[in-house]
């Protein structure tokens, strides 16, 4: 393998890891096109979509685990909520795999784009208000920036559960991680503070990625050297990104997350249009 390509993938992994750990997303949306587009320049026959997805899933696990360690040590992640919502995500992902033969790709992508633009708009409009301290709250999260503990209770649990299943379906059909949808669901629908929502999503994406990655890996579809360099990059990125998160408060995190959603919606439109 060309060393230049491996170094490029390490650097792209680094960027994806920083963004992924900051915002609770996997970063596959950046890694998969990079692998397929840049891979064509360095490898005869390029890297197939399946191989790119396989490498992306392995690197997402490094992002997830790398950032979750920091967020758990600082009492930001809510692993109980993560376990609960992960059940609905896995159910959705399996349903998505079954439905994939019946739905057109363009329809799925259109639904996905509409959902993330709607989420981004709502978050942008409500960006100044994050979840306030609830004295009788079941859970507590520690804000690293302010040093304060915020108690909160989960709202609309059944609706959140069902909506996360829908996120799992869309994620499974579109091949894009569910963190983009689950963070707004946790924050706007279930009353989880923004930073706790992104940290919990970081924890969840690793579990989601595991079930796909292990199948690709045991099936021999992971290019070991490319996966290793990309994974080292995302791991370092996750360590950096989770530490950068301490400089943001909940409302600025909401603003940046909504901007990220708009950018990703733009990238998705380019993908649907065949540009990416």
């Amino acid at each position, binding site marked *: 393998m060309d060393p230049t390509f491996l170094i490029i993938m390490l650097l792209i992994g680094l960027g994806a890891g920083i963004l992924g750990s900051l915002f609770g997303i996997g970063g596959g949306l950046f890694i998969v096109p990079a692998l397929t587009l840049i891979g064509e320049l360095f490898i005869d026959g390029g890297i197939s979509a399946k191989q790119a997805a396989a490498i992306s899933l392995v690197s997402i696990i490094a992002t997830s685990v790398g950032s979750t*360690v920091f967020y758990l040590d600082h009492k930001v992640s809510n692993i109980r909520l993560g376990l609960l919502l992960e059940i609905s995500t896995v159910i959705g992902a*399996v349903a998505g795999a079954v439905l994939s033969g019946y739905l057109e790709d363009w329809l799925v992508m259109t639904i996905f784009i509409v959902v993330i633009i709607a989420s981004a708009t709502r978050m942008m409009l409500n960006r100044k208000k994050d979840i306030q301290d609830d004295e009788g709250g079941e859970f507590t999260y520690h804000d690293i920036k302010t040093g304060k503990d915020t108690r909160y209770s989960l709202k609309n649990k059944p609706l959140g559960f069902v909506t996360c299943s829908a996120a799992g379906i869309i994620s499974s059909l579109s091949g894009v991680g569910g963190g983009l949808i689950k963070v707004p669901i946790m924050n706007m629908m279930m009353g989880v503070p923004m930073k706790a929502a992104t940290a919990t999503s970081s924890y969840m994406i690793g579990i989601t990625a*595991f079930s796909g990655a292990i*199948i690709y890996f045991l099936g021999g579809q992971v290019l070991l050297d490319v996966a290793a360099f990309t994974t080292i990059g995302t791991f370092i990125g996750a360590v950096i990104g989770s530490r950068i998160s301490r400089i943001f408060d909940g409302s600025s995190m909401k603003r940046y997350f909504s901007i990220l959603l708009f950018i990703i919606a733009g990238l998705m439109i380019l993908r649907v249009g065949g540009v990416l």
Partner: protein
Amino acid sequence: MSAERNTSLTLKYSLVIGMAVVIAGLVVYLMDMGDEILWTGLLFVIISPLIGVAVTTVSLWIEKDYKWMYVALVLIAISVVGILVKYL
């Protein structure tokens, strides 16, 4: 220790060991001496979330937090079914 602390420690050690084996495996691989170590390191990285959920489940059982322990068990069961559905 709490479920959070146990999970954090488990994830930390599994990832650090996994990444160390990946780096060692890369060196060996780039010297054309086989890819077995690299394969093992990546496998370790891939299974670390599962190890984390398993440790969380046991920790919740020790804490007698049965409601969330059952949630974790359901997740493990559904993940196994999901993998089987995808694999088959």
